[in-house]
């Protein structure tokens, strides 16, 4: 009986052995059960906007002037995007005029418009030109800056541009990079804070500004704002401090490596609004000098402007009227006057016989009229068939003198002044002679 039980016991024993054998044949160990750790999403901080509106400076100094905004070069911005800056310039008394309409223009047409408008402009704002400035256009702007005009160059690495075609004239180079900071940033690593400023009127009152998509600017002039220690350039592997804002080689030229900071709602973050106000102050503080080639823009335009037209002889009255109409077409009011007021801007129209009435102005301009006509850099000329125009400036007063050998010649000279063709006859910045 015991033997039979023993034999019976073999069944489960060998069943278990077979089971285990089969198991270990296929399963040599235990399966690793993974219990993934919980991802700590709660550690991610909620976004809080660093909004802080700094109101515009209440002490706005109102000045007259013309701010010209370039839209001749298919510039990559919309008018609505510069509303903040432009309205601040306007609040400061400047007239704002957009050149062109953001569409492709013929190079010759562009040059003609730029040349004409820069004559009367105090400040030129160039934002993201997609068409390059030609050498002739850049030379025009360079001359404009030399004459005290302000130039603001604005770029942005998130939009295509050819701004260096103009910027290089002023020792500036907008780098093909963008600045970023992965340590301290607003919302996105490309939205950098700038808190290190060179003391300057442009940086007055600024603690920190936010630049949304800034690029660096290399300049032969001084830097104005410096990126923080954690800010890096996307392409420049450099330890040197990066400048998103810098002066050009002239104190009249300012370069901004970011455009988006001035666009609402970015314009109302941190001290951005204050910075835009400071830029508006810079743009409307032009010490633009005008010469004869800028006729008639050396006279102030607008409702307060007033110019006396003085006639050497009463027979020149009709020519005086044409001059008055010509000035009026440029929004410059004038009247024919019999007596010279040395505190007012004036135009003197006369014949060579009237030279004694304006001899001191001609002398100041280096013009001599006796038996012949002598000018600073021109040859001696016979008087017959000639006319001379000279601009004398005394402080804020501009006195334009136009003399000719006959009424017809004077009439032609006035017409050419109004049309602008007189500029071909300039022998210096302040004297022109027609033969």
């Amino acid at each position: 009986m015991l033997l039979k039980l023993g034999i019976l016991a073999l069944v489960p024993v060998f069943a278990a052995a077979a089971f285990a054998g089969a198991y270990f044949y296929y399963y040599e160990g235990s399966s690793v059960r993974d219990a993934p750790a919980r991802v700590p999403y709660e550690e991610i901080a909620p976004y809080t906007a660093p909004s802080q509106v700094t109101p515009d400076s209440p002490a706005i100094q109102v000045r007259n002037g013309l701010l010209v905004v370039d839209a001749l070069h298919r510039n990559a911005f919309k008018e609505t995007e510069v509303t903040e800056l432009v309205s601040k310039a306007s609040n400061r008394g400047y007239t704002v005029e957009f050149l062109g309409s953001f569409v492709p223009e013929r190079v010759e047409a562009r040059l003609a418009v730029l040349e004409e408008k820069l004559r009367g402009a105090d400040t030129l704002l160039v934002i993201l030109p997609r068409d390059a400035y030609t050498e002739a256009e850049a030379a025009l702007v360079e001359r404009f800056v030399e004459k005290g005009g302000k130039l603001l160059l604005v770029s942005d690495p998130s939009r295509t541009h050819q701004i260096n075609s103009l910027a290089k004239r002023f020792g500036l180079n907008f780098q093909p990079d963008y600045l970023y900071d992965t340590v301290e940033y607003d919302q996105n690593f490309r939205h950098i804070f700038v808190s290190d400023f060179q003391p300057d009127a442009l940086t007055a009152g600024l603690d920190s500004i936010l630049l949304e998509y800034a690029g660096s600017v290399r300049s032969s002039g001084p830097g104005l704002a410096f990126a923080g220690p954690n800010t890096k350039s996307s392409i420049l592997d450099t330890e040197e401090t990066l400048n998103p804002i810098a002066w050009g080689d002239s104190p009249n030229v300012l370069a901004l490596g970011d455009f988006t900071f001035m666009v609402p709602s970015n314009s109302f973050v941190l001290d951005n609004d204050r910075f835009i106000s400071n830029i508006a102050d810079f743009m409307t503080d032009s010490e633009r000098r005008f010469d004869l080639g800028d006729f008639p823009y050396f006279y102030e335009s607008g409702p307060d402007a007033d110019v006396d037209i003085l006639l050497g002889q009463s027979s020149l009255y009709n020519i005086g009227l044409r001059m008055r109409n010509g000035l009026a077409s440029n929004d410059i009011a004038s009247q024919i006057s019999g007596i010279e007021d040395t505190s007012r801007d004036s135009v003197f129209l006369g014949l060579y016989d009237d030279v004694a009435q304006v001899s001191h102005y001609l002398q100041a301009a280096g013009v001599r009229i006796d038996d012949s006509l002598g000018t600073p850099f021109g040859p001696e000329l016979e008087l017959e068939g000639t006319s001379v125009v000279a601009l004398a400036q005394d402080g804020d007063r501009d006195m334009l003198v136009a003399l000719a050998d006959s009424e017809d010649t004077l009439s032609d000279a006035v017409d050419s002044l109004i049309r602008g063709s007189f500029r071909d006859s300039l022998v210096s910045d302040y004297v022109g002679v027609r033969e």
Partner: protein
Amino acid sequence: MNVPGKLGSLYRALLRTLTAWYVLAVMAVAVGVAGGLLAFMFIFPGKPKIGVIEIPYTVISEDSAYSINQFIDYARRDDSIKAVVIKLTSPGGGAASSERLYIETRRLREEKPVVISMDGLVASGGYMMAMGASYSYTQTSSLVGNVGVVAFSDPLIPSLPAENRIFTGPYKMSGFNRREWIGSVDQLKSAFAKIVVTERAGRLRISEDELVQGRIYSGLDAVRLGLADDLGGESDALRKAAELAGISRYGTVDVNLEVMRETVQELDQILASYGTRVDAFDLPAQTGARAPGSVASNETGASDAGGIATLHELRDLIRFGSLEEDREDPLPEFPLNIYRPNIYFLYVGNAP
């Protein structure tokens, strides 16, 4: 039984022999072994298997995520599959779809080991999916990483709504203002980074700050920096999966093929009630060999000529009764286009 004569003698001799203890013992052993093996076969039916999911170059979209999720679900349901190997090549794709695949891969791994074999490119949302696995292999020639988000926003100054649009809150139309939206995108980036840092805890050898730079690494550097576990290919992945599952002798299952077969069968059952079959829809005979995502479908959603039907095409067949794009506008009276949020975990490469 009493059998006379010679036959009876033989019978008695046989009975004695069969009831002898040593014969009974042999029989008991045989019965025991057979019973043990039968019990084993009952408890562990068939040879243990490793499910292989193949995801050739796939931009993760809602459709491809649907199909991949079907594969993952099948691998989870099939008890004979003891471990899963996913052969993955993907630059990522839609943020929500990529995260869905990460979540589902992670869920699968809670039940059975999942080993990812990264082929050419496993970037962004593809890399996020890989974070759900137990172990990952990459090749030296692979490109791995690219943690981050790509999104699109309104322009700096969005256009204002027209006067004929009535809406009940300042963000009803847009859902956000631009700054908040960019902030939300940054949060997504942080969440992605948290996933990687958590899943690669103890193995990652770069900081979170470094990680979110969005760099893409060679397979060699990915292993060196802890973004992947080891260098190797599919066979290494199979061996590792077997090791993690504790199995030594195994078969493999082409999960793509099985899912496609299963789907076609289900579809046939549905179509049978309409008196037709899948064959009537000109689906190629060979199904399932191609994974989703490498979906070569034209704009109408139909299979390209000579192509292989994919799961989401079959799904469309079920939902719309046709592979042709004849979906009606769900809001025909609504005068505006409907946009989905454009947000991606995607490696887009260098734009020309």
